[in-house]
């Protein structure tokens, strides 16, 4: 062997870095990385004063540690009653309960909590089962008789107690979820809540059966009893939930049927009323037709032009036809409304007639004949362009100073601002021309503002 020692040494066994060792490394590596990141962050936050730096680092590390710890405690089912982090876990849960105001939220939360307790019970069951075969089975008779366990048996007793309490909390949480579900008045929402509880209970039953198999019959009576009782309670609660589900379903169906009947009843009543109203409206239509005939005669007797009369009669006839159609369509109320509108139109026709006749007269006097308009270009038809009116400075537009005679200037507006006078139409062209002539007749008199002109006049 010594002759081939070198070769032998090269073939000596080698090991791989163990999983536990890697775990140790990565945990410590993570801490160092966090520390480095914190240092980097602190340096970024311009803390140049050393005590401040230390304080900031400490706060940040504590904060990160607290966040990581509480997240782990809350999320992990490995944290069970008896662990140091269990209090933190329950504290977070209590806050959740405080913030769940609505019954539906409470149902979801308590169901979730029941499932959590069950997961914890599963972990504790392993613990109990692990120690139950060699030790607990020996210990059990001791505290089953009510005697205090020996000093070495204290952890066992504690584990069993923790397990029992956790298992009991499962049915308590489910009960609270059921109570919250009963507070929901809306049947649809209540059905949803009960469905959530029912689904959870099914999985709870399965989980409890697994736990029962884990602890086995040799486990302390307390544990067996707790699991059996909880299992029984869960089954009973589920039956209760299923009955409630049926009741809620019935309530939903009854309500739906009631709503249907209500709708049908209201429709029947409406139809009945419409039928009752129909003859009266038919009669009214007949009366209105007579009124329309009379209205036509009146129009012609009053000497209203044919076109105006036709326009009015067309409107009246259309409304009347619509009323008839509405009645035929089974809507006498609408027909009534249309008849009312027809009457109103006829009663007030005189106003429309006056307006139409007036407009007709105006168009006849102001516009040239159609022959002229077709022959002459549009520019010839339009009124001659007015010269910009004389305006004093400050009345809008741009002021152009014009020297009227040597040494005297005045302001003329080249782009006159739009005034009321412009909109309504200025003075007639003839008048302006007349004024111009008068001004010319006064010789080389200086042009004066209109105000002064008026004073002079």
């Amino acid at each position: 062997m010594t002759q081939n020692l070198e070769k032998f040494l090269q073939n000596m066994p080698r090991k791989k870095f163990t999983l536990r060792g890697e775990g140790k490394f990565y945990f410590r590596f993570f801490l160092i990385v966090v520390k480095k990141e914190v240092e980097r962050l602190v340096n970024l936050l311009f803390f140049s004063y050393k005590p401040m730096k230390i304080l900031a680092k400490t706060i940040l590390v504590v904060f990160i540690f607290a966040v990581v710890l509480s997240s782990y405690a809350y999320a992990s089912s490995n944290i069970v009653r008896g662990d140091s982090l269990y209090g933190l876990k329950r504290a977070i849960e209590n806050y959740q309960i405080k913030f769940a105001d609505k019954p539906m939220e409470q149902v979801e939360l308590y169901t979730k909590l029941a499932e959590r307790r069950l997961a914890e019970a599963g972990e504790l069951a392993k613990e109990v089962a692990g120690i139950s075969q060699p030790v607990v089975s020996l210990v059990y008779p001791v505290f089953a008789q009510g005697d205090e366990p020996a000093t070495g048996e204290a952890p066992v007793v504690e584990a069993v107690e923790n397990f029992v309490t956790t298992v009991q909390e499962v049915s308590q949480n489910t009960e609270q979820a059921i109570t919250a579900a009963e507070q929901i008045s809306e049947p649809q929402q209540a059905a949803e809540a009960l469905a959530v509880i029912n689904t959870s209970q099914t999985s709870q039953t399965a989980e409890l059966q697994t736990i029962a198999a884990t602890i086995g019959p040799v486990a302390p009576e307390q544990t067996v009893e707790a699991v059996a009782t909880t299992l029984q309670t869960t089954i009973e609660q589920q039956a209760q939930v299923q009955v409630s589900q049926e009741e809620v379903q019935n309530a939903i169906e009854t309500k739906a049927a009631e709503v249907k009947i209500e709708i049908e009843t209201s429709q029947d009543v409406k139809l009945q009323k419409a039928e009752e109203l129909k003859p009266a409206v038919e009669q009214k239509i007949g009366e209105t037709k007579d009124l329309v005939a009379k209205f036509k005669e009146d129009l012609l007797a009053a000497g209203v032009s044919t076109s105006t009369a036709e326009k009015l009669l067309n409107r009246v006839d259309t409304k009347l036809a619509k009323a008839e159609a509405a009645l035929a369509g089974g809507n006498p109320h609408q027909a009534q409304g249309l008849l009312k509108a027809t009457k109103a139109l006829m009663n007030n026709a005189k106003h429309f007639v006056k307006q139409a006749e007036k407009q007709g007269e105006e168009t006849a006097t102001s516009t040239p004949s159609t022959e002229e308009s077709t022959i002459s270009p549009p520019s010839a038809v339009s009124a001659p362009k007015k010269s910009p009116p004389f305006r004093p400075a400050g009345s809008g537009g741009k002021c152009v100073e014009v020297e009227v005679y040597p040494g005297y200037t005045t302001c003329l507006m080249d782009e006159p601002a739009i005034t009321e006078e412009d909109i309504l139409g200025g003075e007639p062209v003839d008048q302006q021309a007349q004024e111009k002539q008068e001004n010319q007749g006064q010789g080389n008199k200086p042009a004066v503002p209109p105000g002064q002109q008026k004073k002079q006049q």
Partner: protein
Amino acid sequence: MPQTERKNFLFYYQQFKNKIFNYFWYRTGFNQELTEDLTADVFLRAYEHFEGFNPAYPFQSWIFAIAHNHLVNFYKKQYNIASLAETAATSEQEQEEKLLIKLDAQIVQQALVNLPAGQQDLIIMHYINDLSIKEIAEILQKEENAARVALSRALDALRRLINNKI
């Protein structure tokens, strides 16, 4: 930057973790728990000083130098190497592992742990960790020839110890 640094470091870690583990495993007399801790210590120390590592030089020499120094410091604290080696393998698992190792290997291992620390280093680094004489010389800060001679002497010493055992 820190992310790239971490990534690079973890790449080196994956490459050399088993070598460092084996180095400590042999050097601690096959104490698994202690080996795990020492391996983790070395890599974490390396990470803390990773900014000072020059990528132009091999990482292997650098990490072995850290491992060697760390072990020396550890033994300085523990003082008694032999007793450490004897008391190391206590757990059932370790006992089982030892039983699985062939008898010849066991003799060599026992002889190895009875060698002086420096000679153990040379033999483990060269034969178990497959480091070259040049690399060992760099790690131990010796001349290459001196390292070669020291290794030869260590091998002779081991041979003598094995012969005595047999």
